């Protein structure tokens, strides 16, 4: 085993993608994904029980596929990492149980890691070691947050987050209002390219001088866009779908990039990392590039396939945990649907990890018998 280039398998099941990645240090060897997104499409969002059932079906075949693609034997692994949270409780539990079973059967150390920290760490597979500190903007259907990390294995600080909807949720909602299907991100991105982003002046949430500098709000925007569309329809006029898509998208990415660049300047950080499913949005990438360049900030955005939920990101963080000698998790590791972002991983009890929130309470919030 090369201590600085650990061979780690990572499992991700926090939402609707069953992801298994294998990395060697910061080199990606395999990234296998089975998605249940099509099954959820007709419900307009992710149905937890459908996602959990799909994870169970896909879990072991996806692990076997990843091992085959990487051309390694599970016996060669230096560790097994898994998303311990945050995410959908029942979905997480499938991945955590599988990871524990593999780790136990193979005698490998187990690392329960944080989904959000993984979204940041995945960029090491694309652009090499993360600078320390790194400013990260994570945007997806489940998260919209600004995080500052001095050490991705031990020190992740939340600077701001959405106070209502995640950015990706706003894309899904507007796509639904426009009858464009689910998920909304890709189709709005595509239509927006043919529209005028300045056609309609949609509101920029929490952008006043007295608003919190790094928090986001997309609920008001969502409502404003929906009302604008409904008003057009009520007046019997055609809805200019491309202009609405472009103007809505502009309102989202304008706020995201403005606040991210401001956070970098305020904190004296010269790197900005953008991750999460919405980071695949072409306009977000372009505007971030433009604004970072103007501010002298280096932008790091992984390729779209690594921005959405995947196993490679979990393996990337697991590999860093091994390389930095972080304590492994123990066999009692549980899925924690609200694992705080400040816990990049869940070390075993013997390592004196003080749970800063009540597990029994967190678990009991979720009905395990839906």
């Amino acid at each position: 085993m090369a201590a600085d280039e650990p061979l780690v398998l990572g499992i991700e099941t926090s939402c609707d993608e069953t992801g298994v990645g294998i990395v060697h240090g910061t080199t990606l060897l395999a990234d296998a994904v089975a998605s249940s997104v099509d099954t959820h499409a007709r419900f307009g969002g992710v149905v937890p029980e459908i996602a959990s059932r799909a994870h169970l079906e896909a879990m072991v075949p996806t692990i076997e596929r990843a091992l085959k693609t990487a051309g390694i034997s599970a016996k060669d692994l230096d560790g097994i990492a898994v998303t311990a949270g945050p995410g959908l409780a029942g979905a997480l539990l499938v991945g955590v149980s599988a990871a524990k079973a593999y780790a136990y059967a193979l005698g490998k150390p187990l690392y329960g890691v944080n989904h959000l920290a993984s979204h940041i760490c995945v960029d090491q597979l694309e652009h090499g070691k993360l600078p320390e500190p790194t400013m990260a903007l994570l945007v997806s259907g489940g998260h919209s947050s600004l995080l500052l990390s001095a050490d991705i294995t031990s020190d992740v600080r939340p600077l701001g987050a959405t106070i209502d909807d995640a950015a990706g949720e706003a894309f899904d909602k507007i796509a639904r209002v426009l009858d464009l299907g689910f998920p909304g991100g890709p189709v709005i991105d595509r239509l927006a390219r043919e529209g005028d982003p300045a056609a309609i002046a949609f509101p920029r949430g929490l952008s006043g001088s007295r608003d919190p500098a790094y928090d986001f709000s997309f609920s008001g925007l969502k409502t404003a866009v929906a009302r604008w569309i409904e008003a057009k329809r009520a007046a019997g006029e055609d809805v200019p779908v491309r202009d609405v898509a472009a103007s809505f998208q502009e309102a989202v990415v304008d706020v995201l990039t403005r606040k991210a660049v401001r956070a970098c300047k305020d904190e004296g950080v010269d790197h900005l990392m953008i991750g999460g499913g919405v980071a695949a949005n072409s306009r977000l990438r372009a505007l971030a590039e433009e604004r970072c360049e103007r501010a002298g900030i280096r932008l790091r955005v992984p390729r779209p396939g690594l921005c959405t939920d995947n196993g490679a990101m979990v393996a990337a963080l697991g590999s860093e945990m091994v390389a930095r000698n972080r304590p492994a998790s123990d066999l009692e590791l549980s899925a924690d649907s609200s694992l705080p972002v400040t816990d990049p991983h869940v070390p075993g009890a013997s390592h004196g990890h003080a749970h800063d929130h009540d597990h029994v309470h967190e678990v009991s919030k979720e009905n395990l018998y839906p």
Partner: protein
Amino acid sequence: MDTATPAVTVALHDGEAVVASSSQVDARRHGELLLPAVDRVLKEAGLTLDAVTGLVVGVGPGPYTGLRVGLVTAAAFSSALAVPVHGLCTLDGLAYASGIDEPFAVATDARRKEVYWARYDDSRTRVGDAAVDRPADIAERLAGLPVVGAGARLYPDAFPDARDPGHQSAAALAGLAAERLAAGGEGFLDPLPMYLRRPDAQVPKNYKVVTPK
């Protein structure tokens, strides 16, 4: 292993008898409890997992979240160690453990005021498939029959003749599996979940909310 009911239960069987076993009843901690239980049972027997030549898992019916813990664990063990995994109906384990030699039924808690249930001619012989129903809707059909399992105790009006055991034990499941393996290996199910219900197709408000506070 069986995690289809509130019991998290693991046993090691050598083909003749149960070598070690563990059962904990905690409906909300299947994920946490199962692997440590496996470890405890093996340690008690002085063995490691690679000594195991076959796996048996209860496939339910059972409430979904816990059920999946046992199934995915068995599948992962099977893949990592290249040993076969055999599925057994969870209710068959309870029936076998009851030792009853006349017609009876097994009923477990299905939540939502329903039970998972099946009829048996004797402790080894199920009649028909397992089903999920409201106790009042099947009380007449099962009238006069003893009913084994926690479902019977929960609904004494529908099932007045409740019998032991109340909870599933992997020891019984392993015993039944050992008998079937010795008899040629017939009578196993694929190790796939028996849900008996369609998923609730509801997108929760604020689905996927994993935003740190």
